[in-house]
């Protein structure tokens, strides 16, 4: 999956030479670890064990994918649970903005594994039904998988080489709410601080935001806390969770949703929150229900939150030369 994502980037920007790669994941090569343990436990054939073990480390697929394309930049692999992808992009953005790096590859990946699937099910966070973020009768998340990579570059450098600039990242906010290892603080303070910090980091006001791609897992607790935080900070800004269409791809989710935001900026539309039937009376949100619609979109915010009370938001703006 990482190779496919990188291939698409290098087709668009073949001369992009990163100085650093920052990638988010939640579980790395967990399915290889499962193969090894299950086979060991059940006294199976362990001849493939060295391969399983070699593929377990979280950095392995990133380094292998880079090697496939002759990229040798050092890797930082962030595992901040479901916020990992947005954390990776946010950290990469700060690395470029500080001038320490000119070009950084950034994004996230995660592949489905039995352990993760069963784990979320044991918490009763996943649902066998449709994923209905922010719906009054939401019943939980649907897991997904994937990879998404973004090429981040200093504006002068990108202009200098005549790059096609898709958008600007203008702000990043991170917070830790310390409430519970799996549940957000019901007050929404963690998400609110992440969004506030992203706005402050960009010197932007809430009024400038035209669309919010919410974390929106469709769990009762996440959507309640995030919804409360959004309605406290923003007044009627259109909101959708595209996890309703693609599921929750964990460490990849933030990166995939950043690309959804880029597409919204590029094609001037609001992505939809499908499977939405009924508003939740406790949430004062302007949901982009069931159908995408055209809109003037200049500034967008993307949220990702994870276990351990980790929260991340990035702010992106349409690039105008």
């Amino acid at each position, binding site marked *: 999956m990482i190779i496919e994502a990188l291939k698409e980037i290098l087709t668009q920007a073949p001369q992009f030479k990163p100085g650093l790669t920052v990638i988010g994941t939640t579980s790395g090569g967990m399915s290889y670890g499962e193969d090894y343990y299950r086979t060991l436990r059940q006294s199976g054939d362990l001849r493939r064990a060295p391969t399983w*073990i070699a593929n377990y480390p979280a950095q392995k697929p990133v380094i292998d994918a880079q090697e496939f394309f002759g990229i040798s930049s050092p890797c930082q692999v*962030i595992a901040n649970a479901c916020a990992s992808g947005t954390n990776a992009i946010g950290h990469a953005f700060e690395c470029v903005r500080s001038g320490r790096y000119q070009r950084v590859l950034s994004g996230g990946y995660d592949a489905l594994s039995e352990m993760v699937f069963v784990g979320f099910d044991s918490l009763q966070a996943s649902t066998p039904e449709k994923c209905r973020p922010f719906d009054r009768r939401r019943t939980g998340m649907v897991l997904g998988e994937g990879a998404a990579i973004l090429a981040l570059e200093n504006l002068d450098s990108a202009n200098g080489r005549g790059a096609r600039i898709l958008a600007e990242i203008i702000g990043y906010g991170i917070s*830790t709410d310390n409430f519970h290892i799996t549940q957000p603080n019901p007050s929404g303070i963690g998400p609110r601080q992440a969004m506030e910090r992203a706005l402050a980091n960009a010197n932007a006001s809430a009024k400038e935001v035209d669309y919010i791609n919410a974390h929106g897992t469709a769990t009762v607790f996440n959507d309640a806390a995030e919804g409360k935080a959004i309605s406290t900070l923003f007044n009627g800004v259109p909101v959708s969770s595209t996890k309703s269409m693609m599921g929750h791809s964990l460490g990849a989710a933030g990166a995939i949703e950043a690309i959804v935001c880029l597409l919204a900026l590029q094609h001037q539309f609001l992505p939809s929150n499908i499977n939405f039937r009924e508003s939740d009376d406790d949430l004062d949100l302007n949901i982009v229900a069931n159908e995408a619609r055209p809109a003037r979109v200049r500034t967008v915010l993307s949220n990702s939150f994870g276990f351990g009370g980790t929260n991340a938001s990035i702010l992106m703006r349409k690039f105008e030369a």
Partner: protein
Amino acid sequence: MSLAIAGMGWVTPLGSGVDSVWERLLHGHEASPTTISEKFGDRAYGVFRVPESAMEGFGHPRLRRASVISRFAAVAGLDALRAAGVKLDSQNAERTALIFAISNGGVIYTKRFYRDVVDAGAQSASPLLFPETVFNAPASHLAAILGITGTTYTLVGDGAVGLLAIRMAEDLMANEALDHCLIVGTEEVDWLLCDAYRRWRLLRSAPPIEPFGQRRGMILSEGAGAIVLAHLPRRSTEEVGERLFVVESAHPGGNFTKRVEAGKISERIVRDLAESKIDFVISSANGTFVDQAEYRALERVVPNAVVYTAKPALGESIGAAGVWQVILAAQALRSAELPPVLHADAAVSLRLPRERMSIPEARHAIVLSCGLNQQAAGLRLAIE
């Protein structure tokens, strides 16, 4: 960018407390191995575990159900902050970042969680264990204990991850909104890890680790190391103590895809860090292919430097190892001494301290870390 090390703490198989463990290393002590086995496994392995006494007197309600990895991290992290004189409160908690360096993470609970699934089916999966299997569980526990409300990252990698975390801290601290960065490297040991590394031909079943020798393999260990980084202008020598440790340069590191390429990347890192004089190197030699990679790099670039590795005494703690190495370098600079390298063959041509060695003029050190899974990193440390 240069940063000061304002505080250090560690939990090791030789105990806890920076000075007391250092003293034991100077006297040539080696951790005592514990043998661990598994009902369904046909082998037992010797490992270096953290003794109970190293955690004496520590407890926190948040950790009552957490795995030992989180306790190691909390003890080391709190020690480092105490040594740095940093008290976190609602005013400054947002201006302190926390970076965790880990490799395998909470492997004990991960195994228990998945064992139940394999043995009894998905309906037996424990919702209490699952959150502790997530890589950032130890970081979230420590953030909650300390009340850190801003930046918390868990960086995953191999034995180089501790130094990569320090590089990440340098990147973060380029942002002036931060006063301090607490870096914690941590790992816990389990039979499953031993078996995996043995199948990968990197582990021997019992000590000793023989550095720079015949690649007979490593011994796994566990624990945590923590350092507090501060901006140099904001921390004077008066504040920090009589001597100031400065991370002059944290190398961005590099990757290798085949083990035979590890020497090349290690050499590049040493070359970049040795542009001006260096006095000694804290190596990550652990009895595996890593030793030959570093041997070659050091012999070519800094043939006269004294080279020390603590892994024969402390074992290979992977996620914790890099931060331990930085603490070792700082202690060597502070005390102007290096402990003896244990179990090294007489034929090794590097300048190893075979006995406790005085290094009165030493001001600059390189910490070099070549990991087992394709990553390598290094940094340059000085004392002012």
